[in-house]
């Protein structure tokens, strides 16, 4: 054993020699998965976001004014109608985030850790909640409670509820409902990876059931904060409620002000960009608070040693009360809007001044037989398949970067741009795309992609990437790094180790993320509206066109069929997973 410090006789073997010439150049610029990832992130996220946001500071850069640098665009944001709308958005965002997190936490515990009978209902229903964009939930409520709506036709007097619905209470409720599935999936996935030893440790040391729950909640803290951050960001950047309840009820929110700014003549892009930056700052403040609260705490709990938790056996009273809670929640979140949509889709004459109404399936028949009404569903399905696959692939890489142990520059960079994209309303995002891909130098480069399905798919992907990535971060963060290291030292390359180890461990979350992205894209409204290729309207545009033509029956029938179709895809995907995935993949995160 030498400690002699003598010269090491070293024979450089061929593989370790520096490549030279063309080979060296190729090696230096070799196409790696990370290189592809960064290229895509740059083109679908960074450039469109930066170009649009830069208009707030430099209107001249995008030919929107004469000044190269100014802060005057921010002045209107904090005063008058913009200021009030911004304050409304902030309040609504906080209420929706806290409410959705509390409900989601209670539901995750009931579904994953207890034997409450109604949990089976919830797991199926949670996806339906995801499928329905906020504008569809709001439209369901609207169809029921509007003047000469379904309930008034049925003879009910619903004016007091209508007044509540078309104001802050209704907006908060719909955004909270829309936030619950986001929060639920983040919390539930983390809870599934949490063994029961932590709870047992509390109980054997004299802690009550409630104290064990508190310990579990603190172990779940990263997921709880992530859930609130996602719901807050989604709520303040939501456009669906802004375009429905907010506009009808005259309770302005920031995204609706943005929309009005973009639709006014002349278009005030600098102020819209400044409003977007302000919204972005609000989200970043929320995330900074989250990071500060979590500083220095490690929550890596998923490893080969984790034992699955056993279910808490509820008493009869417990089963009845928890099932009652779940059923009430289902009725409020899904039952009422679904009833609104289905009843409206079956009512002939809704939206007209007729005094006689009939109930039948004529609207569905029209949708299935009309190429004009049917094709949007086919087109949206194709786009959603591409988008979901691309977005989940990128999100898996992004979440890996975000959960790496080192606080690298790339981690901070991805974190910032994903946050920025979450905070940016979809409609603003779409405008960023219009700006960027209409620029002269982009066209000069031969990239004539504006108005194509390709650009729409990229925009969908960029729009879905932030929330998809965030939903995977909790799971990715629970994987012990030593498991990947073990795969590497036992002979697998980085890509193979990822496929063999990481992917099976997060197979279920990946599947869920894919289904969420698929469903979300299928019914996406703002990006579809601004970027769809001429002659190929996606579903959301098809519904909007029908409703704009007062074909409430046809519009709601497309809506119902689209959601049913999304549910069918979810069902098929889960069937295939449960049927064909290796047993070890299914064991992790499985509902017992």
């Amino acid at each position, binding site marked *: 054993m030498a*400690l002699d410090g003598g010269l*090491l006789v070293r024979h450089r073997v061929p*593989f370790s020699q520096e490549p030279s010439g063309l080979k060296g150049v190729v090696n230096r610029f070799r196409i790696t998965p990370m290189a592809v990832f960064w290229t895509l992130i740059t083109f679908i996220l960074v450039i469109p976001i930066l170009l649009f946001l830069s208009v707030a500071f430099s209107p001249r850069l995008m030919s929107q004014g004469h000044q190269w640098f100014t802060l005057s665009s921010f002045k209107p944001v904090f005063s008058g109608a913009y200021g009030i709308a911004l304050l409304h958005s902030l309040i609504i965002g906080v209420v929706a985030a806290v409410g959705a997190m509390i409900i989601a936490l209670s539901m995750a515990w009931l579904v994953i850790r207890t034997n409450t009978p109604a949990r089976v209902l919830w797991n199926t229903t949670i996806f339906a909640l995801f499928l329905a964009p906020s504008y569809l939930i709001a439209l369901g409520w609207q169809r029921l409670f509007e003047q000469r709506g379904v309930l008034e036709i049925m003879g009910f007097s619903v004016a007091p509820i209508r007044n509540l619905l078309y104001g802050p209470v209704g907006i908060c409720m719909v955004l909270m409902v829309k936030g619950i599935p986001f929060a639920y999936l983040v919390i539930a996935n983390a809870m599934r990876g949490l063994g029961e030893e932590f709870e047992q440790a509390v109980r054997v040391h004299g802690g009550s059931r409630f104290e064990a729950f508190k310990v579990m909640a603190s172990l779940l803290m990263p997921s709880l904060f992530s859930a609130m951050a996602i719901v807050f960001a989604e709520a303040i950047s939501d456009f669906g409620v802004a375009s429905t309840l907010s506009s009808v009820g005259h309770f302005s929110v920031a995204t609706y002000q943005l929309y009005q700014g973009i639709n006014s003549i002349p278009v005030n892009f600098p102020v819209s960009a400044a409003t977007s930056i302000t919204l972005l700052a609000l989200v970043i403040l929320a995330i900074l608070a989250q990071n500060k609260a979590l500083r220095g705490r490690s929550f890596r709990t998923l490893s080969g*040693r984790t034992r699955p938790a056993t279910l808490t056996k509820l008493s009869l009273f417990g089963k009845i009360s928890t099932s009652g809670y779940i059923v009430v929640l289902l009725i409020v979140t899904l039952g009422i809007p679904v009833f609104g949509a289905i009843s409206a889709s079956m009512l002939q004459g809704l939206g007209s001044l007729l005094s006689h109404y009939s109930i039948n399936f004529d609207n569905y028949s029209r949708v299935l037989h009309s190429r004009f009404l049917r094709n949007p569903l086919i087109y949206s399905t194709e786009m959603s398949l591409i988008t979901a696959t691309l977005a989940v692939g990128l999100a898996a890489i992004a979440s890996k970067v975000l959960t790496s142990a080192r606080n690298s520059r790339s981690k901070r960079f991805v974190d910032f741009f994903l946050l920025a994209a979450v905070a940016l309303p979809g409609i603003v995002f779409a405008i960023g795309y219009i700006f960027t891909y209409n620029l002269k130098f982009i066209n000069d480069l031969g990239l004539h992609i504006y108005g194509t399905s390709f650009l729409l798919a990229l925009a969908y992907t960029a729009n879905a990437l932030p929330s998809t990535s965030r939903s995977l971060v909790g799971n990715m963060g629970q994987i012990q790094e*030593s498991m990947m290291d073990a795969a*590497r*030292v036992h002979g697998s*390359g980085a890509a193979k180790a990822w496929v063999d180890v990481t992917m099976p461990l997060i197979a279920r979350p990946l599947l869920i993320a894919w289904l969420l992205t698929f469903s979300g894209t299928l019914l996406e409204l703002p990006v579809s509206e601004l970027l769809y290729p001429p002659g190929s309207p996606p579903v959301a545009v098809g519904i909007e066109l029908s409703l704009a033509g007062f074909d409430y029956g046809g519009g709601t029938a497309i809506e119902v069929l689209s959601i049913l179709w999304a549910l069918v895809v979810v069902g098929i995907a889960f069937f295939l997973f449960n049927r064909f995935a290796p047993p070890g993949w299914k064991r992790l995160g499985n509902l017992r």
Partner: protein
Amino acid sequence: MEEIGKSTMSDNAPVNAYRVEIRGASKHYGALKALNQFDLTIEPGTFTVLLGPSGSGKSTLIRSIAGIERLDSGSIAFGERVVADNGFHMAPEKRDLAMVFQDYALWPHMTAFENVAYALKRRSLDASESDRRVNEALERVGLSSKGPNYPFQLSGGEQQRVALARAIVGRPSLLLFDEPLSNLDADLRERLRVEIATLTREIGATACYITHDQSEAFALADQIGVLRAGELQQIAAPEEIYRSPANRFVAAFTGTSGSFLGVVTEVHGHHVQVALGKRRIECRTSTPLKVGDSVEVLIRPSATSLSHHHSNSLPAIVLDVAYRGRGYEHVVECEFGVISSVFATESTARGSRVEIYIDPHNCLAFPSEKRVEVDLSISELTPIK
């Protein structure tokens, strides 16, 4: 890029054990120096244990050897093949080694059998041969019936056995152990230690094992390297480390029963007399000392006994006594401090007054930074009896 050990290996063929040479290895995490110009050579087929406290750089070193970490500078070579050298970094999967992790790092979605079989994929064996070897490896670690079990269905000891089977099944040229026993209870630790020692030597691979447990290190190693703050303090056979530690840190980290501060009163080559208050004690030293130097005297557990020797003894009172099967270990307090692990075949009751014999050969004096004041002119300084 050529991989090491890609060719298939026959079952009982001797492993082509690596000679591992590390030269000038440095690694920083921000301002923290995890490794600082580190040099080390591990001869082929030997079992080397790197011993050090938390933050000494041992994990960084073993992860750099595995290829999981990249060195900032310096080189690592396996035999004549350089695997890391100033920017060049060979991927871990190409180094033909295996590793046992502290947290086992078993893949929870794979059964015990699948976990072990994974390490054989790089050998490109046919399925029946692969299955045979996996079964053999599981049988070798006493888990032949646990192949279909998932990690969560196994105890901690069984999980670590699966990790051990995974490491040896491919008969790698280098076996790395990252504190593999630290999560196990004492009994399991001892049993697995024996298995690690025998299995590693059986396949003939070079082994590098890191731990902070000195008893584990002495039991396993052909050679022990003691690390501190990213630097190698000493590397030698266990006996040499124990008998002649290079410095106070090595001595303290490899096992002491207690320590006293004193002043050198006489020097006779490697033996010195040290005044402790009004008493004198004889001990060894490996560093040059002169009369009047302040020293710290470190006492090895093997240096002490309860006896009626009349030389190099100190009066003490028994504080505690613990039964250890083959005898009793006492904790005693003398006027200069507490001494633990004082062995005797018979128990002595707590509170008893005893004489502690201190063997001068296992009692080591090192220069002390702390200045000790003893009046050497006092005539009644108690001489060695």
